[in-house]
Each structure stands twice: as structure tokens, then as C-alpha cells.
């Protein structure tokens, strides 16, 4: 500590130690905040269509287009150390061979930003069921933080929600599959600490997810020539790399 340089090095060195210790304590502190997540998922409509993975592909694949209702209460996942929660809805169906594990594919997802996180264009903005559909296009450009959120973070009430992704199987065949379920999952991303995924079992004062799985359903046969609505929803992240 005899000269300016040595003192600066000493202070900075001890600062890194303190910063690491505080971060470690913050990461551990989340175990004392109780979690009681619950959700209900209902199938609304499912259709299977034939299509190609991209425009120049000769391969035809079968795509499932699943509409759903989703009600969640994940507000207890937002503690003081939560940066954002990535919520996703998986379709799970048995593989063609019994020896293989079931296939899982995400049909819808959202990034729920915490109140402590600065505004970001990829954060999910809950659709307002009262606002007419036509005006949502215009307001989406100007729906910056000025708009008060409809529900507290983690609460979702989606009716007849279109999927973000159409799903297909590795075999390319998806019609007439049975025992399909929709399951809610999430990933809590903290400011400091460990990523935590959805959990069914209780762990301390963190209760497991209540509900969050739909009833079993069957993927229908491919519709004939009749036109079906297979439009998908776009999230904010589709703006990436494009001017606002």
C-alpha cells in the first residue's frame, strides 16, 4: 500500500472479491422467495396440412397447426433477481418406435420481461381482448412502454391463440398421431445465478407447476382441398435486424 498504483490495485482486487460474494449471496437469496406457479392449457383446434419446409424444397412434409387456450399465473416466478422468464408451450407425442423417447416441439413461446428489466422490443406484450383486431396493427408500432401492461408479469390469458410455429416430425409424417399433449414449460433467467426450468415437484418453498398439461388429443387427417387457416403469430423478436 506504499504507492498510488499499489493502493489502486489492492482496492480493485478486494472489490472483485466483494462483488463476487455479493453476487453469490444474491443468487442464493432466491430460494427464500416462495413460488406457486399454476397454469391451464386447453386445445382449441388442430389441423394437419401438407407443405414444404422452404420454397425451393421438393420434399413434402406434414405440418400440424395447433390453436390453444392458455391461462397462467407465473407471477411468483418474478422475484427481485428475475430478469426475464421464457415461457413456451410444447407439443409432446410418442415416437413411431416405442423404444425411442417421445418427440417434443415448441409451438408457441414468449419472453416475459420483469419490471426490473429495461424495455426491450422482444418482450411479450399481452394482447388486449377488448381492442379490435384491425387497430392492433397500427398500435403495435407505437405500443412502447407508455401502454400500461394488461396483467402483472407472468399472468397470461390467451383465448384461441394461434401458434408461433407449425411443427413437423422428423419422419415428415404427422397425421393420425395419437396421445398428443400440450405442456407448458419455462426458463427463469435471473440477473445473477442459475437458470431454472419448469418443475413438477416441490422443492423447499418452491412448489411445482400445478396443471400446465392439456388433455390427450389426436392429430387429424390431412384436410382435402379445402383451404384452412394456418397463419402463425409473430413475436417481437421477428423484428430483429430490421429497422423499427
Amino acid at each position, binding site marked *: 500500500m506504499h504507492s*498510488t498504483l499499489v*493502493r489502486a490495485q489492492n482496492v480493485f482486487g478486494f472489490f472483485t472479491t466483494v462483488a463476487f460474494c455479493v453476487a453469490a449471496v*444474491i443468487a442464493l437469496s432466491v430460494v427464500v422467495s416462495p413460488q406457486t406457479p399454476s397454469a391451464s392449457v386447453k386445445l382449441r383446434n388442430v389441423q394437419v396440412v401438407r407443405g414444404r419446409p422452404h420454397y425451393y424444397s421438393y420434399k413434402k412434409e406434414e405440418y400440424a397447426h395447433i390453436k390453444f387456450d392458455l391461462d397462467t399465473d407465473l407471477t411468483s416466478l418474478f422475484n427481485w433477481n428475475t430478469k426475464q422468464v421464457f415461457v413456451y408451450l410444447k407439443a409432446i407425442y410418442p415416437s413411431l418406435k416405442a423404444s425411442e423417447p417421445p418427440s417434443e416441439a415448441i409451438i408457441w413461446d414468449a419472453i416475459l420481461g420483469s419490471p*426490473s428489466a429495461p424495455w426491450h422490443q422482444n418482450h411479450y406484450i399481452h394482447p388486449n381482448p377488448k381492442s379490435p383486431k384491425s387497430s392492433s396493427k397500427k398500435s403495435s408500432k407505437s405500443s412502447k412502454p407508455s401502454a400500461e401492461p394488461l396483467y402483472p408479469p407472468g399472468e397470461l390469458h390467451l383465448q384461441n391463440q394461434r401458434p408461433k410455429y407449425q411443427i413437423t416430425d422428423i419422419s415428415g409424417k404427422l397425421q393420425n398421431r395419437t396421445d398428443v399433449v400440450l405442456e407448458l414449460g419455462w426458463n427463469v433467467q435471473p440477473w445473477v445465478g442459475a437458470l431454472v426450468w419448469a418443475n413438477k415437484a416441490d422443492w423447499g418453498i418452491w412448489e411445482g407447476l400445478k396443471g400446465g398439461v392439456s388433455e390427450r388429443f389426436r392429430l387429424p387427417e390431412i384436410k382435402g382441398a379445402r383451404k384452412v387457416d394456418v397463419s402463425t403469430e409473430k413475436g417481437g423478436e421477428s423484428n430483429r435486424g430490421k429497422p423499427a
Partner: protein
Amino acid sequence: MADQLLDQVRDVLEGQIDFDGQRLAELITTVLLGAAGFLAFFLGFMAQDIRLTLWIGLVGTVFTFVVVVPPWPFFNKNPITWLPPHNAISGLDINIDGKKAG
């Protein structure tokens, strides 16, 4: 003249403090940074606001730098009183061929 100026510049940049000041600087570093870290977590957790934790920690660290790094006068209150320069052979009277040496 230039040497004197350079010596002054070097003294300011080096910022040397005495031994008691060094012990004091060490103590202040530990106490201030430790307190800043503790307060940052405690107050942030009470307010459930992680930004508060961040800012208390950073402000406390900057404050510690300001207090410890410059050679403040209170680090130089107990300067060492060195013995006067002493040459082992200065007391001797050496005479070589009628000329004084040493």
C-alpha cells in the same frame, strides 16, 4: 532544475505514504468495501430492488477509491525519522602521501 521538477512529478505520481498510513489504508479498504457489499445486498433485498444493490455497490467502490488511492495527508502523519546520513569512514583521517583522502 529539470531534475527537481521531475522529482516533484514523480513524488506526486508515486504518492508514497508512511508505514502507519499503509496499515490504515489497508484497514479502510477492507472496512469500506465490506460495508458497501453488505449494505448493497441488505438494502437491495429489503427493497426487493436489484438496481439499488448495483448502485450502492458501485458508489461504495468509487468512494473507497477516492478515500484510499490518493496520498491524503492523514496517511502521512507518522513519517519515519531516519538517522542522518552516516559514512563509516568519514570519521577517519586518512592521509596518503600528504594528501587527504576519503
